[in-house]
C-alpha cells in the first residue's frame, strides 16, 4: 500500500469508483485531508483547554550524575518497563514445570522478541547445562556416526536467519468461545529471533546420511528428553501413506542446530546450549537441550505425536503430523492490553506470519469484516518470520470491530473462526489461526470478541 495517509473506514465513494482520474484525484485529496486532520488534531488538543501555559520544570535527572559504565554489566530494561514480562495462566496446567508462558506482544515493537521475553514451553522444566560437557550425537542411517562438542559445532559454516517459533496451541483457549481478554494470552505463544547455528544439511554431509533415511528425530538432554520425528524426502507415516510434499521436501532444508539467539548464546529457557530449529513448524519440533539426532526410515510416533500435538476432528478421528503453522495474524494495537486514549489519529499495528514462506499481504477491517483495506508491510519481510503491518486510522470515538487477515505467498488466506469450526469442530486444540477480532468501545476499552457469522 503506497498511500500513507488513507484513513479508515474507506468512504463508499472511493470503493465504488473505478474512474482512474477521479480515483487519483481522490487519493490526492485524501492525502491533503490527512494533513488537515493532523493540524485539526493539534488544534483540537489546544482547544480542549489543554494548552500548556505553566513554565516547564527542569527534570531532576538534569541535575545529577548517572550510573557509571558496567554498574550493570549485563544491561536490564528501565525500571519503568517492569510490567513487560512473560506471564502464565495458573489454571491452564497443574504446575509450572510442564507448562507454558506467554510473550507480552502488546509491549513489543518490530519483529524481534527480546531473549528474556521469548515464550517458554517446558515438558520437564528448564535445566542448566554445562556447555563444556554437553555433546551432540548424530547417528542412525549414516556412514559414520559422530559426536560433536559445542566448539566443534561452531567450526561448521554458520547459517543464520530470522524465524518465528510458535506453539501450535497458540489460541487454543479460544476454540469454544472467547476466554482470554488479552493479546498476551490469545497470541503470546509466539516469538521471533535471529537464530544462528549449523545447517542440518552440513551435519548430514559430515556423517554421510544414507538414501534409506526418510525421517530424523532430535532428542533433548532434559527431564522430558523430548523427541520429535521430522520428515525427509520420501517420508511415510506408520500406515505407509506419504506425508505432504511440502513437509517432506521443504521443511528439513531450513533446519539448523542453533547455538545463538539474537546475538548471544541461547537462553536456558530456550534450550541452552543447543537446540533444533525447525522453521515454520510447530515449535515442539524444535527440540531444546539437543543431545542426539538420529536418521531413521520411519517415524517414532512418540508421546508428542500421538497423545499430544494431534488435532481432534468432528468425526472423532485425530490428525497427525500437522507440522506446519499456517498463516496467521493479529492486531497488536489496539488490543485489550493497550487501550485507546481518545478519538483522533492512530496507527493500527500488528503482526503476521506463515510457516509456508513469506507474508504477501495483510488486510485490516474496522467494521467487523464488511470492508477491508490493505495495510502496509514494514521491512523486512522474511520467510517464516514475523512481519509487521501498519495502517493509519482516524478513530471517530465510536464502537469498532478491528481485525486483520493475512494472505501468504502460496495464496492461502487466513480463515475465519466460523470456517475453522465448520471444518474442524472445537476439539482440535492446535493450529487455531483464525482471524482475531478486537471490539473497541467508545470509552477506549478494547475487548476480545468473536464474530460468529463472518
Amino acid at each position, binding site marked *: 500500500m503506497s498511500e500513507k495517509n488513507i484513513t479508515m473506514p474507506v468512504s463508499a465513494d472511493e*470503493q465504488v469508483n473505478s474512474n482512474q482520474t477521479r480515483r487519483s484525484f481522490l487519493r490526492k485529496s485524501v492525502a491533503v485531508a490527512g494533513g488537515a486532520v493532523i493540524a485539526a488534531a493539534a488544534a483540537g488538543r489546544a482547544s480542549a483547554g489543554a494548552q500548556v501555559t505553566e513554565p516547564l520544570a527542569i527534570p531532576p535527572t538534569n541535575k545529577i550524575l548517572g550510573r557509571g559504565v558496567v554498574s550493570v554489566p549485563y544491561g536490564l530494561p528501565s525500571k519503568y518497563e517492569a510490567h513487560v514480562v512473560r506471564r*502464565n*495462566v495458573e*489454571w491452564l496446567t*497443574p504446575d509450572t514445570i*510442564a507448562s*507454558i508462558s506467554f510473550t507480552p506482544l502488546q509491549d513489543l515493537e518490530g519483529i524481534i522478541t527480546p531473549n528474556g521475553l521469548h515464550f517458554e514451553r517446558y515438558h520437564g522444566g528448564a535445566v542448566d547445562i554445562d556447555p563444556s560437557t554437553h555433546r551432540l*550425537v548424530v547417528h542412525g542411517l549414516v556412514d559414520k*556416526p559422530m*559426536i*560433536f562438542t559445542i566448539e*566443534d559445532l561452531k*567450526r*561448521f*559454516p554458520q547459517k543464520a536467519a530470522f524465524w518465528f517459533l510458535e*506453539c501450535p496451541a497458540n489460541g*487454543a*483457549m479460544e476454540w469454544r*468461545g*472467547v476466554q482470554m*481478554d*488479552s493479546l498476551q494470552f*490469545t497470541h503470546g505463544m509466539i516469538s521471533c529471533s535471529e537464530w544462528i547455528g549449523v545447517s542440518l544439511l552440513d551435519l548430514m554431509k559430515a556423517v554421510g546420511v544414507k538414501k534409506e533415511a526418510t525421517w530424523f*528425530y532430535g532428542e533433548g538432554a532434559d527431564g522430558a*528428553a523430548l523427541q520429535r520425528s521430522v520428515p525427509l524426502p520420501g517420508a511415510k507415516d*506408520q500406515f505407509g501413506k506419504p506425508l505432504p510434499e511440502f*513437509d517432506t521436501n521443504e521443511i528439513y532444508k531450513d533446519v539448523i542446530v542453533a547455538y545463538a539467539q539474537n546475538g548471544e548464546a541461547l537462553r536456558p529457557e530456550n534450550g541452552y546450549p543447543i537446540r533444533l530449529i525447525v522453521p515454520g513448524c510447530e515449535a515442539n519440533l524444535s527440540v531444546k537441550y539437543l543431545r542426539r539426532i538420529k536418521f531413521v526410515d*520411519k*517415524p*517414532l*510416533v*512418540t*508421546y508428542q505425536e*500421538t*497423545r499430544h500435538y494431534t488435532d481432534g*476432528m*468432528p*468425526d*472423532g*478421528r*485425530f*490428525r*497427525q*503430523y500437522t507440522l506446519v503453522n499456517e498463516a496467521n495474524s493479529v492486531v497488536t494495537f489496539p488490543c485489550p492490553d493497550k487501550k485507546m486514549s481518545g478519538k483522533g489519529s492512530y496507527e493500527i499495528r500488528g503482526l503476521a506470519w506463515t510457516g509456508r514462506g513469506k507474508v504477501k499481504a495483510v488486510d485490516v477491517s474496522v467494521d467487523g*469484516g*464488511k470492508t*477491508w483495506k490493505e495495510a502496509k508491510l514494514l521491512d523486512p519481510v522474511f520467510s517464516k518470520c514475523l512481519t509487521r503491518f501498519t495502517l493509519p486510522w482516524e478513530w471517530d470515538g465510536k464502537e469498532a470491530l478491528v481485525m486483520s*487477515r493475512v*494472505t501468504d505467498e502460496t495464496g*492461502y488466506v*487466513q480463515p*475465519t473462526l466460523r470456517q475453522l469450526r465448520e471444518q474442524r469442530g*472445537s*476439539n482440535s486444540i492446535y*493450529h487455531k489461526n483464525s482471524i482475531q477480532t478486537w*471490539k473497541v468501545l467508545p470509552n477506549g476499552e478494547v*475487548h476480545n*470478541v468473536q*464474530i460468529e457469522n*463472518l
Partner: protein
Amino acid sequence: MFKSKISKTALAAGLMAFSSMSFAGDAAFNGIGKTIDEKAIAPWAISVHFDGDGLPAGKGSVAQGEPIYQAKCAMCHGEFGEGAKGYPKMLGETVEQIHALAAKDEDTVGVRGINSLWGHAPTLYDYIRRAMPFFAPQSLGNDEAYATTCYVLYIAEIIKDDKTVCDASVLKATKMPSQDNFYTDPRPDIKNARCMNDCMKEAPVVKEMAVVGVGKDASSGKTAADH
C-alpha cells in the same frame, strides 16, 4: 608491482609458510567432531518406535507394576488412573465415546486418556521409561518400566488379564484402541477468499467474553486447554 621474478617466488613461498590450505570452494568439515561407536551411544539410544523397534530385553507383570504405580504415579494420575490435581488421566473415555462426543461438538479435550488417544503400546513404554515418574525421570529400570507400563495398560482397560506379563513381544502385539484413529495432515483444508468490499450481507453477530477479564485473573476456574 614486483621488481623481479625472484621476489615473486619469495612472496609465494612466504604465503605458503603461513597457510598451506587454500580457501575451499565447498565447505569442508575436516577435523570437526569425532566418530563414535554405536555401542558407546547405546546408553542414550533409548528411543522406541511405534512398531516396537528399540524395545529392550526384560519383562514386568501387571502385579509387579501395581506397587510401583501406587507409590510413584497414583498421586498425580489417580489410584485408578482417573487423574488427580489436574494431571492427565490414564483411563479416559473410550474411542467410541470420543467419536460420539466429537460428533455433538462436546468437549473431548478433558476426557482423553491412554485408552482414548495413544496409538501404540511400545511408545507408551518409551515415554514412561524416559519421562516418568515426573519428579524422577529415567529412574525406572527396564523391567520396572515394563511392569509399570503393563499396569497402566491394565488400568486403562487395554490389557484385560491381570496375570499379564509384559515384554517386547507382548507390547508389540497389544493393539491400542486408537491405533487406526489417526490420519496424516490434509491441510490446507480451508479456502477463505480475500474479499475487500461488501463482504458480509448481515450485521456481524458478536460473541463477547462470558466473564470479562479472565485472562488477567489467573485463579478463575475455566476449562483448561490441554496441549
